[in-house]
């Protein structure tokens, strides 16, 4: 069992507030690992440090054996450590297909090419359409993002992450703001991706978490307090204590 991501002793302070408190977490190759915790536990901050948008004050991050702690975000993405956003962050002025083509372009280079129209370049359009089909958006390929529904944009977000051929995906609340139907198709999609791509999933939707996760880590006040299979976590006393005040989450 290989460890694809090894986070050791990460510390992050923001003007006196300890956001990440000596956090260590390990993600196994091919697993879907969920990260849960009460609001304000520091899940997003932790993910931001793993993706490279924030630098930790102390600690290290090893990705596929490389020490990426000082690497800028774009370099980690190039290496296969890709994230999606809690607040959808796509290119509103482009069509869905154009969005995914940009993600494909990020992997394939030749970024100074200034002559050939990208719409006539199968090296870009084919993988982009594949990713759109995988998430179920092929029908909206030519729709401008600003005219797409919220759920569709979250699917697009995922398509872009997939188009980057990631080794590890950091998914920051992909189900946020989705209707019941949208959540179900997104969960089914994540089910299809399981095993092909390693996934670190932050989610509040406990139904989805327990349906999908191979292992779960609980983060409280910036520090992991428990890691285990969904069943172990569900029955853990420490976790129940941590969620005091939010017992309805623990279904």
């Amino acid at each position, binding site marked *: 069992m290989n460890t694809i991501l090894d986070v050791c002793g990460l510390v992050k302070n923001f003007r006196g507030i300890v956001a990440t408190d000596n956090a260590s977490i390990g993600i196994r190759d091919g697993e879907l690992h969920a990260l849960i915790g009460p609001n304000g536990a520091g899940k997003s901050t932790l993910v931001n440090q793993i993706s490279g948008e924030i630098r930790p004050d102390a600690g290290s991050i090893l990705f596929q054996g490389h020490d990426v702690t000082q690497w800028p975000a774009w370099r980690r993405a190039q290496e296969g450590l890709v994230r999606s956003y809690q607040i959808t962050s796509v*290119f509103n002025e482009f069509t869905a297909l154009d969005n995914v083509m940009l993600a494909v372009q990020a992997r394939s280079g030749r970024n100074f090419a200034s002559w050939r129209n990208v719409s006539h370049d199968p090296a870009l359009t084919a993988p982009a359409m594949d990713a759109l089909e995988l998430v179920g958006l092929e029908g909206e390929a030519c729709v401008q993002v600003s005219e797409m529904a919220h759920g569709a944009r979250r699917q697009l977000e995922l398509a872009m992450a997939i188009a980057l051929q990631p080794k590890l995906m950091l998914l920051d609340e992909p189900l946020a703001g989705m209707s019941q139907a949208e959540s179900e198709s997104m969960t089914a999609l994540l089910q299809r991706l399981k095993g092909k791509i390693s996934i670190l999933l932050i989610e509040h939707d406990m139904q989805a978490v327990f349906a999908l996760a191979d292992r779960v880590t609980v983060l409280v006040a910036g520090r992991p307090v428990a890691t285990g299979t969904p069943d172990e976590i569900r029955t853990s006393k420490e976790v129940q204590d941590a969620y005091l005040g939010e017992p309805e989450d623990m279904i």
Partner: protein
Amino acid sequence: MVNNTYYPSARSVVSVVLLLGFLLVPFVAGMTGEGYYITFTTRVMIMALAASGLNIALGYGGMISLGHALYLGIGAYAAGICAFHGIHNGWAQLAIGLAAGGAVACVIGPICLRTSGMAFIMITLAFAQMLYFLIVTLDDYGGDDGLSLTARSTLPGLDVNNSTVFYYIAFAALMLTLFFTARMMNARFGRLIQGCKSNHRRMVTLGFATLRYRLAAYVLSALVCVVAGFLLANLVRFASPSYLTWMVSGELMVMVILGGMGTVMGPVVGAVVILLIEEIFSNVSLGLPGNLDSLVNNHWTAILGVFIVIATMSVKRGIYGSLPAGGRKP
């Protein structure tokens, strides 16, 4: 695709009319005997060229540069200073201008691109101001008064002193720029730049090392303005520090934004509209009662100012940008 019937969009119609118009102006001028039309339209095309250059950085790339007049000035003074020292060959002057402009852009670009927002605007402005003050103090090259070109740059095989020939040289420069901009913006590099404008943070996390591409776009945009400056100095046979003021930079921004950012023809439309307003209100007698005509003629910049304010508030995507773009209809 369903059906291949092609209905021309409003944008295509405007583009064709405009470009055809440019093509035919010398013929019309020839027939009516009004040589002034040629000079005026040459100036319009040169400013359209400069605006198109700025469009690459600003309209497509989202870099709010209030200092692009710097490159206009470099192009103009490359011609002027070379002519002063006896170098009259146009290609040599242009090469020197492009080298200088490119070098300056490669130095300024990385500095500016490390900032954003207001600081970016200020740094681009600061560098233009620096060259302005430098030139004003260089009395050898005319200082505040500017520098006359003893003759137009020579281009072997072309009679540049013929205003019609010079007109078509400017026309060619504009057409080439528009054509290559159109191709580039639909290609990988262009999409990358537009992505940076749309959502820079996302471009970074997708894995693009954005600095080098934005720098390339900035340098390219600077080089186009150098060419425009070179042509401008040749048109009026004069290089002046007034080409470097921030009002000129501002005027270029107005043309790009009011014309339509991020479209190929937007800056051209912007240049035409702004310069026509200038021309009409400053020279033409509108038959207004009493003293109003001369009032308008003397103070037309006030009208331009009001027009800019109103247009900015009401037109979201520029005049050309607001026209529908679709081509094929089922």
